[in-house]
């Protein structure tokens, strides 16, 4: 009658397993430790490169959406008709993270990343004070870039500037457009100062898109290039010339010289989604690019058009008055690893022209425009522009073709000079007719918590 099993032992076993041997505190197995006090060099490097990934998250989407808003591109996508509906006809959906409500979440997330790095960098004992300063200058420059991205998408209104650490806190107040621009200027200028005290090297490696700009000293040139763009947007043309003089502007250098965001196909990397087979892809160039392109002396179209756009089988969406069609495909980004520029020499030359036009210095402006026309477009030089209006027309033509499909420049510039009305309306008789929007709406998620 001796029991074969001793059930008490089983109880004991369960008791031991349940209370003693088992650890209930399980660390997050799927994520790295959040950036904290006294970060290691590796953590600083990860966070710094994270700011570049953070800006990459939205870059290609912005290029495409802003190109559609500025009538440089179409996307005929059977999976999402909103590319030809919402973006061209409206209404823009503030409640959607794609389209109307887009280009807000991602830059603010990256601003948070920059602020988080700035908050702890001073405590990093494994870095020198110079290195702290270099990292700060880097982070502030990227933060400024992200604020600029927010402002570029959203001009009708003010935007929040204070990015708070606490998710449970009430959201930061909206500040005026002028305040936002002032914040960007301040961040860039402080960034420059930080970089000047940043020694000779960053305590991390920058990807190849920053070749030539990967030391604090060289990085200042990138910082100043952004500063020049901001100054032009602010109509601070003298300030723009000053900033340009400290940038990497060089009429003798390749037009492509500049700062790029890398794309790749390796583990954890992100392929450039704008790289498509131009014959079958969903992204199309706007037909007006072909008709508006000036001719080279030999009769060929503007080389910039030829370098970026090719003919392809025609496709259309809709019918009758609601039809859109195009027979032009994009070759701007050749492969999934082709980087997308943030800012490059060609823009800087045109920014200098733009600043000079603003200051009515039409001679140097024409010289710069001619550099771009002849080198980049293989067009004939033009005589000195006679009036500021004519100069602006010529400048905007060149900015359009030089900066095609790389960051919404067309839309931003036409808005800047109140010329949105001269962008083509493709479907005026559609129900509802197409509209040229001047801004994206503030996202519902930003508005609801304040009500």
């Amino acid at each position, binding site marked *: 009658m001796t029991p074969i099993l001793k059930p008490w032992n089983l109880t004991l076993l369960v008791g031991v397993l349940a209370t003693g041997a088992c650890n209930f505190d399980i660390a997050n197995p799927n994520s790295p430790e959040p950036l904290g006090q006294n970060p290691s060099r590796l953590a600083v490097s990860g966070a710094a490169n994270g700011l*570049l990934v953070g800006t990459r998250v939205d870059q290609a989407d912005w290029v495409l959406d802003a190109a559609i808003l500025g009538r440089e591109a179409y996307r005929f996508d059977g999976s999402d008709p909103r590319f030809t509906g919402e973006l061209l006809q409206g209404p823009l959906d503030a409640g959607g993270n794609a389209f109307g409500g887009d280009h807000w979440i991602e830059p603010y997330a990256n601003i948070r990343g920059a602020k988080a790095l700035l908050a702890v960098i001073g405590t990093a004992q494994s870095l020198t004070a110079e290195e702290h300063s270099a990292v700060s200058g880097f982070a502030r420059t990227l933060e400024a870039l992200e604020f600029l991205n927010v402002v570029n998408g959203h001009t009708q209104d003010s935007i929040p500037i204070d990015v708070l650490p606490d998710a449970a806190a009430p959201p930061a107040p909206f500040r005026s457009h002028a305040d936002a621009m002032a914040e960007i200027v301040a961040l860039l200028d402080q960034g420059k100062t930080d970089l000047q005290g940043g020694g000779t090297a960053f305590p991390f490696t920058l990807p190849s898109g920053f070749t030539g700009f990967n030391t604090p000293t060289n990085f200042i040139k990138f910082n100043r290039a952004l500063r020049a763009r901001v100054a032009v947007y602010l109509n601070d043309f003298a300030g723009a010339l000053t900033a340009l003089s400290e940038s990497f502007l060089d009429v003798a250098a390749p037009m492509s010289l500049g700062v790029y965001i890398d794309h790749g196909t390796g583990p954890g990397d992100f392929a450039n989604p704008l790289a498509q087979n131009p014959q079958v892809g969903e992204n199309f160039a706007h037909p007006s690019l072909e008709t508006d392109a000036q001719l080279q002396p030999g009769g060929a179209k503007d080389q910039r058009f030829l370098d970026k756009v090719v003919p392809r089988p025609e496709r259309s969406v809709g019918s009758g008055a609601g039809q859109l069609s195009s027979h032009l495909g994009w070759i701007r980004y050749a492969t999934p690893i082709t980087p997308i520029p943030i800012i490059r020499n060609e823009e800087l030359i045109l920014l200098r022209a733009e600043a000079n036009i603003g200051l009515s210095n039409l001679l140097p402006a024409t010289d710069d425009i001619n550099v771009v026309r002849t080198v980049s477009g293989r067009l004939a030089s033009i005589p000195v522009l006679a009036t500021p209006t004519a100069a602006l027309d010529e400048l905007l033509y060149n900015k359009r073709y030089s900066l095609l499909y790389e960051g919404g420049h067309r839309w931003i510039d036409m808005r800047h000079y109140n010329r949105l009305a001269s962008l083509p309306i493709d479907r005026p008789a559609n129900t509802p007719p197409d509209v040229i929007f001047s801004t994206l709406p503030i996202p519902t998620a930003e508005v609801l918590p304040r009500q």
Partner: protein
Amino acid sequence: MTLRVWGIFFSCCFLSVQLAAAQVRQITGKVTNAETGQGLAEATVSVNGTRILAQTGNEGNYVLNAPDGDLTLVVRAIGYKRREVAVPASQGTADVALDPDVFKLEEIVITGQATGVERQNLPNAVATVDAADISRAPTPTLESALQGKIPGALIQANSGAPGGGIQLNLRGVSTINASVDPLFVVDGIVVSNAAIPNGANAVTLAQSGGNPRNQDNPVNRLADLNPADIEKIEVLKGGSAAAIYGSKATNGVVIITTKRGQQGKPQFSVSQRFGFFEAAHLLGQRQFASLADALTFSSDAALVTSLWNQSGGQNFNFEDELYGRKPLSTETSASVSGGTEGTQYFISGLVKDDGGIATNTGYKKQAVRANIDQDLGSGIQLAVNTNVIHSKSKRGLSNNDNAGTSPYLVFPATPGFVNLQASNGVFPNNPFERSNPLQTFALLQNDEDVWRVLGTVTARWSVFSSEHSHLQLIGIGGADYFDQRNNFVSPPTLQYEPNDGQPGTVVLTKAQNRNLNLAVNATHTYAPGSASWQATTSAGVQYEDRELNSTQILGRTLLAGTSPDLAASVAPFQQIEPVRDLGIFGQEEVLLLDRKLLLTAGIRADRSSSNGNTGKYFFYPKAAASYRLVKPFGGVDEMKLRAAYGQTGNRPVFGTKYLSDSTATIGGNFATLPSIQAGDPNIKPERQKEYEGGIDATLGSGRVDLSLTLYQRNISDLILVQTIAPSIGQQFHAFSSTSTLRNRGVEASLGVQPIRTRDASWLFRTTFALNRSKITHLSVPTFQTGGFGTSLGTFQIEEGKSATQIAGREGVVGDVYPKFQMSFTNDIDYKALSLGFLFDWKQGGDIINLTEFLYDAGQNSKDFETAGKQRQIDFASKTGVYVQDGSYLKLREVTLAYTLPSHITSSLFGSNMRYARLSLSGRNLLRFTGYRGLDPEVSNFGNQAIVRNVDVAPFPPSRSFFLSIDLGF
């Protein structure tokens, strides 16, 4: 203490020896069905107040060695009402006729980890579904066999893809952002119902970035269980019944008990089924009448003209070309059960092959089970269950997509005059979209292969047993382990593949899941001599350790082969979800006043690694009472009043307490990014307090059974994943809030047996359920979540409103939750024929029909000219155009069966044949709905608390027909 227990134990054994010596006379007799007079096999006849019992044989006869003197026999059989018969000392025979227990009043229903009471005393509305109900018609997976059978359960398929993917939702909306699924318990152990993405997202790009890939249309793993193994399913719908499962029980608990062997010679059951599936509903698309008509479709006149001429002016039916298959489907299941006094066994096997309606789709399953019971002596019973399952599914490609690959995203852009069919084995490219679905389905591989082992060992030790008192210790140890492999291979030859510059995609997914359960329960019953009352005390400990570890390797640029190893660019992903839970409970149950009054109370304490404070115990009390009135007034046989209260918890979704920073690389450099979701280090389970009351009654001499339940569930400490102002730099804030949610509902069921004669019977059952949810307090401002943005319909979380409201451009435009649900079941037997059918009715519950939106936008909907065009215009201001009523009435199951008369059976197969049955059955044969999509059962995002009913290019629904031959010998 220990010594005393052993003392009692031995004296108990001594007592049984004495009793054995006192067996001096034999009582014989026959137990029969009071309705039909047929003998009842496997009925038990016991002497009241003793442990002496005998079982009847196949003809219903028994022989019992009984002590001298007057005694009372208690006669029981499953499915029949218990009867007590007085047998005087002089009497040597006792024939007993038992009344069928049509409404299962005497069925034992679970009330604790190791306790149960008869349904007639049960203080909660617990739904049970038995083997006969599950197997009425062949079912692809278990969940679909439950549709319409549980009042208060909303059971809806996420799509029509073969192999499962079904959500079971009990008593309304129990959460917004915490866990969604009920707890599934099989033979005492908690099993996994995980849904693991198959990797299709790599091609569909439905979800980009680091978001959870939940648009892959995954299978939830409950689908693995073999329905034929199941003896009974008990559904503890609300907190008052489920409180014994503590912090995991708010969504309800589904307790599945598998079949066990009975003492006796081996009994074989074999079932062979043949049938087929076919598409139940397709959408159709715009028909082009002429070339002029076709030319309106595209600006490329040359292309359209050439295609039109090639097609000969016909419109192809793409849906039929892709989903028009009706391949033979087969299912063979067999079991053998029996045993000796000491050992009983149930062994079963299943081989199933369901053909898919589309090329290269289908579902296969093989399963074996062995349930063994062994008496080890010394009052110890060991039950060992082992189950090995192998399931394979091929689910094609469906659901949302941003790459033009999912068929119902391609058809809307492809006019009918394009010929997509292969010629000489070569599929033409689709000139209007990125893919040709006929080519995609022919060449794409989306194979899921799952091996799963469920094993349980239960030891029951009768520590001591006396006439009045019985202490039992039950130890349960069990594991649910599965290994899932998904091979998703999209070869470079597919039309869409070169588009991203990286032709050929492969995703290899390997996921391992382990649920380890250990529990010890002690149950003490005390029944004093008068038998007028009885007390059951139980207490126990449960420990659960589970881990889901899922690894994906994504390869792009795959020019040859099917392994990521051969791809030019490779990226790995891994997600590990370890959780450890510990629960302690105690419960007291008292039956008083001649078993008329039941009082019960209990408490459970739980801690979990998912909580912020992992050391803290959360307490979940419960209490319930029921009172039985026997013949309270004319026509009423019995009536029961019941009331119950209970608290339960709901677990945070794994990872809610963490800040999930992400990683990436740029130009080969390692990068980290802050989490887009703010976690809550103090996260704790949601708490539900449920009040439930009801009346059950049996009328008309057991012909009518009525049950009515009212409940209110107050859920507090709601975990919110609040969409926050993105200028904070994060998108979501997950935290335990002070918000509260309320559900109120009514459940009713009525069973009537209008005909009950020797030759014919008709049992009609109907259920009704209604639930209304309301966010009674929202501690944060109104926010929107889920879906594809406001313009295409999103979900609005707002104080004072239903938790499931759909918001659009114009404000609130609908609600996902049904207004009410009903079901109607008929079981009609006439002589050897039986007919069973079940209608399932859902009234209300809106659906965001984005499939129609895509067809309209592609100017390709069936009614584009007459209505679609206008819908597109209206859509510019009204999301509501595409938010449509999802009411339906479906004929879920029909079975017509013929049981061969026994003389034919024995002349054909010999006298050992117990039964032979032929049946014809169908599932989802008819449906009535005003919904314009493929199927009003749809969920692009899989199992969801709120964000259901989003219809984006789902896999079309199917109906099935089967011929079955069932033999028992």
